[in-house]
């Protein structure tokens, strides 16, 4: 007896959209079981993790605040993923974005005007794109694997930022802490909702989501990227340049991650620190897939991921659980999503008897239809 996965003839579209919900439900269920096994009352833990963070306006503001960089990174990544361009390094591109945007803020510390913020955003986007251009160039020139290159560059980016804030950009009046000066007011994103930390970065993120939707669904270039992802041979046949697809996919992801970096630097943080993100760039990969690589799906999934971040913080404070519980929930969510997706495309079949002896080709059963 053995277990076999068989391809389904027609994968269900409905289940395609339901699988993120199933994955979220399974994550909750297993999460509660986990709390119970740690000796916590699962209902109290659920309450502390998922309800308490949203009980007041401040909490809702935090939810939207953390969702902004997640959705920014995720829509950019999704554009690439649709085209089979696997940018895993949004965290590094985000860091470079913060570095470049922050550099602009520090350079115009005393002489800035209303133009500083837009300039920071442009610099941040350019920085993220430059960082993403490295794997894109290596991919198109030497066929280097973009997954590995973009991932490894994350650490280069983080160490570069760390070098700067430990050295030349360190605040002379900062008691030797590795951090830059606080940005001037002109270099900070305006607050949206008094009583919370929510800032205009959310509007920016929503704007980018809408633009991404327009690009992916309504433009020829977006259509061609989707073709490249679904059927590379058809893309080649139709004359869609594989190089351009790689460049576009990487640069879009780099630009949005770079903007997310500025969003953090000029938003809740307000200066440059050795680390600008609690892993938003990596979590955005999960957000992109849970959101089905669709801009509006990503809008929703970034809220879910943001809640996991908040819940993780609350769990540290209220339940005395380690901060790694956030990573655990993120991992479970991705795991269950991938599992659910497998079952959308395949069905499990238990084969009781031995299989017939080898046919020289496994494809005989699928060939011809006459």
């Amino acid at each position, binding site marked *: 007896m053995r277990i076999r996965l068989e391809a389904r003839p027609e994968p269900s579209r409905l289940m395609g959209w339901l699988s993120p919900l199933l994955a979220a439900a399974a994550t909750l269920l297993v999460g509660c079981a986990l709390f119970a096994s740690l000796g916590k009352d699962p209902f109290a833990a659920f309450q502390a993790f998922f309800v308490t963070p949203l009980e007041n306006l401040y909490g809702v503001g935090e939810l939207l605040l953390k969702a902004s960089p997640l959705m920014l990174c995720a829509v950019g990544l999704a554009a690439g993923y649709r085209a089979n361009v696997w940018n895993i390094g949004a965290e590094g591109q985000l860091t470079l974005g913060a570095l470049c945007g922050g550099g602009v803020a520090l350079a115009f510390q005393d002489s800035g005007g209303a133009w500083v913020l837009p300039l920071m955003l442009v610099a941040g986007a350019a920085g993220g794109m430059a960082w993403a251009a490295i794997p894109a160039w290596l991919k198109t020139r030497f066929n280097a694997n973009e997954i590995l290159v973009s991932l490894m560059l994350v650490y280069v980016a983080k160490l570069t930022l760390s070098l700067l804030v430990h050295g030349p950009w360190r605040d002379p009046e900062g008691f030797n802490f590795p951090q830059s000066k606080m940005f001037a007011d002109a270099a900070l994103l305006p607050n949206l909702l008094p009583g919370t930390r929510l800032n205009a970065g959310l509007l920016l993120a929503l704007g980018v989501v809408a633009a991404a939707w327009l690009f992916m669904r309504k433009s*020829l270039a977006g*259509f061609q990227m989707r073709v490249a992802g*679904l*059927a590379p041979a*058809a893309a080649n*046949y*139709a004359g869609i340049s594989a190089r351009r697809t790689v460049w576009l996919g990487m640069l879009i992801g780099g630009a949005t991650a770079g903007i997310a970096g500025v969003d953090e630097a000029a938003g809740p943080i307000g200066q440059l620190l050795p680390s600008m993100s609690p892993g938003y760039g990596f979590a955005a990969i999960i957000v992109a897939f849970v959101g089905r690589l669709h801009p509006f799906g990503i809008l929703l999934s970034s809220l879910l991921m943001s809640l996991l971040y908040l819940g993780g913080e609350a769990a540290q404070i209220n339940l005395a659980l380690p901060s790694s519980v956030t990573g655990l929930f993120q991992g479970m969510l991705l795991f269950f999503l991938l599992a659910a997706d497998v079952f959308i495309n395949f069905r499990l079949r238990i084969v009781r008897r031995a299989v017939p002896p080898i046919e*020289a080709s496994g494809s005989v059963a699928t060939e011809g239809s*006459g």
Partner: protein
Amino acid sequence: MDSPVRGHLAPPRLKLQGISKIYPAVVANDRIDLSVMPGEIHAVLGENGAGKTTLMKIIYGLVRPDAGTILWNGRAVSIPNPARARALGIGMVFQHFSLFETLTVSENITLALEPGAAEASVDRRISEVSERYGLPLDPRRHVHSMSAGERQRVEIVRCLLQQPQLLIMDEPTSVLTPQAIDKLFATLRGLAGEGCSILYISHKLDEIRALCQRATVLRAGKVSGECDPRQETSSGLARMMIGGELPHSRHRQARTRGDGTLLVRRLSLPSDDPFGTDLIDIDLSLRGGEIVGIAGISGNGQKELLAALSGERPLVDARAIVLNGVAVGRLGAAVRRRLGMTFVPEERLGRGAVPEMSLAENALLTAHRQELTRHGFIRPDAVRAYAQATIARFSVKAPGPDATARSLSGGNLQKFIVGREILQGPRVIIAAQPTWGVDVGAAALIRQALVDLRDEGVAVLVVSEELDELLEICDRLAVIARGRLSPPRPARETNAEDLGLLMSGSFIGAQGIARAEVSSAGLSDAH
């Protein structure tokens, strides 16, 4: 040629009663009855999609029927898998070979035998069987160095080693030259003479009339007739097969218009597939207002030539391909399309069309230069209108522009792709196997569309394995063999016999032969 149909009193070798197989979208077999006597060569005739292959897969245990019984030598049997079929004495030679190219003949055959067969004795048995049936084979040769005809011999010998009582041949001649077909028929008649029954699947009427004693005709999954094909005319068989007359296309003398539109000069290209065919010194000129055909057995460089012409594999030498006066050798498919070339690929799903996308989106795939976009944004109404026009003009059976490409039958999708490429108003169109797997009516429609394009002054290049089709529509014909192209000659001055000789590589000089012996697709069977 009359082999004895022995013992009408004996039970039939194989008898099918009420076999049905229903797939979610289609009834592949609908209450099919069929019986084959010992020593009989029985044709199963039908168009692509009529249910022939499904029926054979049921007999060979690859597909389970939903209803019906199978009687083997008078006893009801169930055939759950190919191993059981072979144990009963049923052998099958597939249309697409199922051989490992990196292994030798005897290794390939040993794999299919019961475990425990020693290789040395296998070699001896192969030699015995191949001698007895006139199928010369060297057991120690590697399969990748063999021609299609030789590979087919390996498959047949593999079946014969198990002393089958019934041999199923699925479209066996589609990969053979006319000369090799005669040899195959002699072997099959010899086998039948010894009492082995043969189920011969084909849609080629002449072959069936020449070889078979009885024929069961399938149409849309049902038996539409049974007859003695030797007593029938081709048009009578066609009526049973398609339920109407065979359509013919109008064809006038070509009037070429001077300038070369597509010029290929000394095109050489090593294949990127280790078992592919290298192109060697291809010369070709294609003028507006003519149809040039390239015949040849698949695997002789067609795939490589088409990739080079379409721009999917750009070349090093820019001047090797000149399109409308522009040296495009190094330029990609997009530029060539902008210069007025369109292309119908052999593979429909995944190359000619994106399976998951709608017909409208698939129209956009290559036709976006037909003002289907504005400032880089898609005009959905224009895209739908273009798809709708293609559907209407080429009578594609589809619910509408929103149907996914995958949901269409192969023939209908082919019509859509051909239509999409034709409606772009090309100056040069290249069509690979334009009617492969398409029903007879649609095939005639596609051929007529190509002829009409030619009459409008378009340069048309057709690459096909169907000699009849090429002889019907082409003005000039060339043959590709072992990566070389024969000089084209006027279609009216040639025939299937001549082309068959060329397909075996007779036009290649001594040097070429020496080279081809070390390379892959040799065709020694036709010499």
